[in-house]
């Protein structure tokens, strides 16, 4: 027999108390594991969506904010179109695709339209690698879409715009509906008559509200020389972390270079909200779990006063009393963490597809985190009761019951 025999046999004496003490920790861990599992999957989905959305690096004028990029005000700052050449000539690795844009909100008389000048890839395609990778949205081979590609949302797949006539426009779905535009019809912007070459499928992004025309035409009718308001770059993720941003900044020192990760997207917002909720839960769980375990342990010490007194009288040192109770706390914590992980993962797998529209698989690393955290909670909560147990007066064993 060893000390552990004592712990083990005692552990199962008061089963209902045991279960209720573990409940708070188990459920708390379950909630955190559930949220984190869904969040992790959702984050992956965001990454893939971002890749599908195209640009993940934005080159903006020095004085521009990311808001300007969306607002497209009339006096929003610009920079020379020649910067595109600079990037292309630098042969930076990791730049898979880039598209210069000039965006302006203009008045059509009856309503506002955001006119965006783009350069069709056919005209940018002086460099061979340019055409291979296509315009934004194509799989560049750097992206892991998940084996089944289940995150690939067809609405988010942009198709490459190979060619665009100087007098043609492509119209976002929302604008088209608002202005009653149909394919083959015309639209007059700043006294320039454009033919509607196509209505873009709905994407759920700012693109739906935009009218796309040839960059050089837009520059002409707006009277903005060879200026553009941004360059969207499709950079591969690993290249970004390997210093692509820094290299770009060296080439284009008087611009602002930012990644889409820094741009607020709703999905990222949701994720960070989930993270915050998760954090708040974590704190609540730490406190509630520790208190509930502590409470249980306190009652346990109270009930076992005589037994503990006897053990001290017949020679248990403080170290032994600590081991008895802290090992018990450790076992409780580990069990709470384990069951919490199981319940949380199961919950995420069941609720994930319904709530977030994502297929969720349990994440094995969270088992480790869950157990570690629950053990920490349990040990913390048990410390004061254990301290008390170790200091019980052994002479009380002589008193009659």
């Amino acid at each position, binding site marked *: *027999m*060893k*000390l552990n*025999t*004592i712990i083990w*046999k*005692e552990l199962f*004496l008061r089963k209902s108390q045991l279960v209720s003490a573990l409940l708070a920790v188990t459920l708390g861990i379950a909630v955190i594991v559930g949220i984190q599992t869904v969040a992790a999957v959702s984050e992956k989905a965001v990454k893939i969506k971002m890749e599908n959305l195209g640009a993940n690096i934005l080159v903006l004028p020095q004085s521009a904010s990311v808001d300007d990029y969306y607002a497209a005000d009339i006096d929003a700052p610009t920079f020379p179109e020649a910067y595109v050449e600079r990037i292309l000539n630098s042969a930076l690795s990791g730049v898979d695709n880039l598209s210069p844009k000039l965006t302006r909100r203009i008045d059509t008389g009856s309503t506002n339209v955001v006119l965006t000048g783009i350069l069709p890839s056919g005209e940018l395609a002086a460099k061979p690698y340019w055409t291979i990778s296509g315009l934004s949205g194509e799989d560049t081979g750097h992206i892991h879409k998940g084996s089944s590609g289940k995150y690939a949302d067809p609405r988010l797949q942009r198709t490459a715009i190979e060619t665009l006539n100087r007098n043609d426009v492509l119209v976002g779905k929302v604008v088209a509906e608002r202005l009653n535009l149909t394919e083959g019809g015309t639209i007059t912007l700043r006294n320039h008559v454009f033919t509607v070459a196509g209505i873009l499928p709905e994407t759920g992004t700012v693109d739906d509200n935009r009218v796309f025309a040839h960059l050089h035409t837009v520059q002409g009718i707006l009277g903005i020389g060879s200026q553009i308001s941004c360059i969207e770059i499709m950079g591969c993720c690993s290249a970004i972390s390997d210093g692509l941003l820094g290299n770009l900044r060296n080439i284009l020192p008087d611009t602002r270079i930012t990644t889409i990760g820094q741009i607020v997207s709703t999905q990222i917002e949701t994720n960070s909200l989930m993270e915050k909720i998760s954090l708040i839960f974590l704190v609540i769980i730490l406190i509630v779990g520790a208190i509930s375990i502590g409470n249980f342990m306190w009652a346990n010490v109270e009930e076992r006063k*005589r*037994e503990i007194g*006897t*053990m*001290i*009288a*017949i*020679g*248990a*040192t*403080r*170290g*032994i009393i600590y*081991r008895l109770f802290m090992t018990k706390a450790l076992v409780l914590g580990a069990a709470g963490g384990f069951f919490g992980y199981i319940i949380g993962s199961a919950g995420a797998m069941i609720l994930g597809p319904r709530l977030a529209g994502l297929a969720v698989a349990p994440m094995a690393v969270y088992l480790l985190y869950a157990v570690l955290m629950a053990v920490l909670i349990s040990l913390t909560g048990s410390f004061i009761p254990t301290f008390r147990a170790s200091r019980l*007066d*052994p*002479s009380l*064993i*002589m*008193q*009659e*019951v």
Partner: protein
Amino acid sequence: MIQITDVTKIYNGPRGQVTGLDRISISITKGSFVTVTGSSGSGKTTLLVTLGGLLRPTTGSVEVDGQHIYSLKKNQLSRYRNRKIGFILQTFNLIPYLNALENVMIPMIFASENKNGGCHPRAESLLERMGLRERSLHLPRELSIGQQQRVAIARALANDPDLILADEPTGNLDPAMAMEILEILRKLNEDEDKTIIMVTHSPMAAAFGTHRLDLRNGRLI
């Protein structure tokens, strides 16, 4: 050799101070069988726990083999009790969820600081000596009162202590069982030269001792 000198114990209870022991000095030589008698509240238990290293006296000293036991650190004192003293109590104080064998092994586990589990054979032979070989896997509640007390004696003997302190070990037993226990104690005293200090109310039990201490209001008479 146990020497207590001028020991006074004053309890600071919530309802004022109570004198448990009042300036007591005794010396007990090794191999004695001392019985302690006195009316209820006279300080018998207080004397026993003070001798056993469980209760620090308010003033005075307790020396065992030249060692002032209350100058030991708490953990040292625990180890001292573990190796040198066997406690036998009126209420047995067995661990209810451990079987007889495991109860007997507890002091051995504490002594080895859990390093080895090789105390099994000794625990078995102790139980056998108490006539409990067939009962070693039974829980305390499955044993008769007399059997429980014999398990407690086996536990007290686990680490082969020099000193056995017993507080009314026969108080809860019928006369026949009491006799049995007293015989066991006498044998331990005579055959193994164990020093025994036994608190008792019964004159019959008190007659087993070689020496006798009588207490009244915390004082020796």
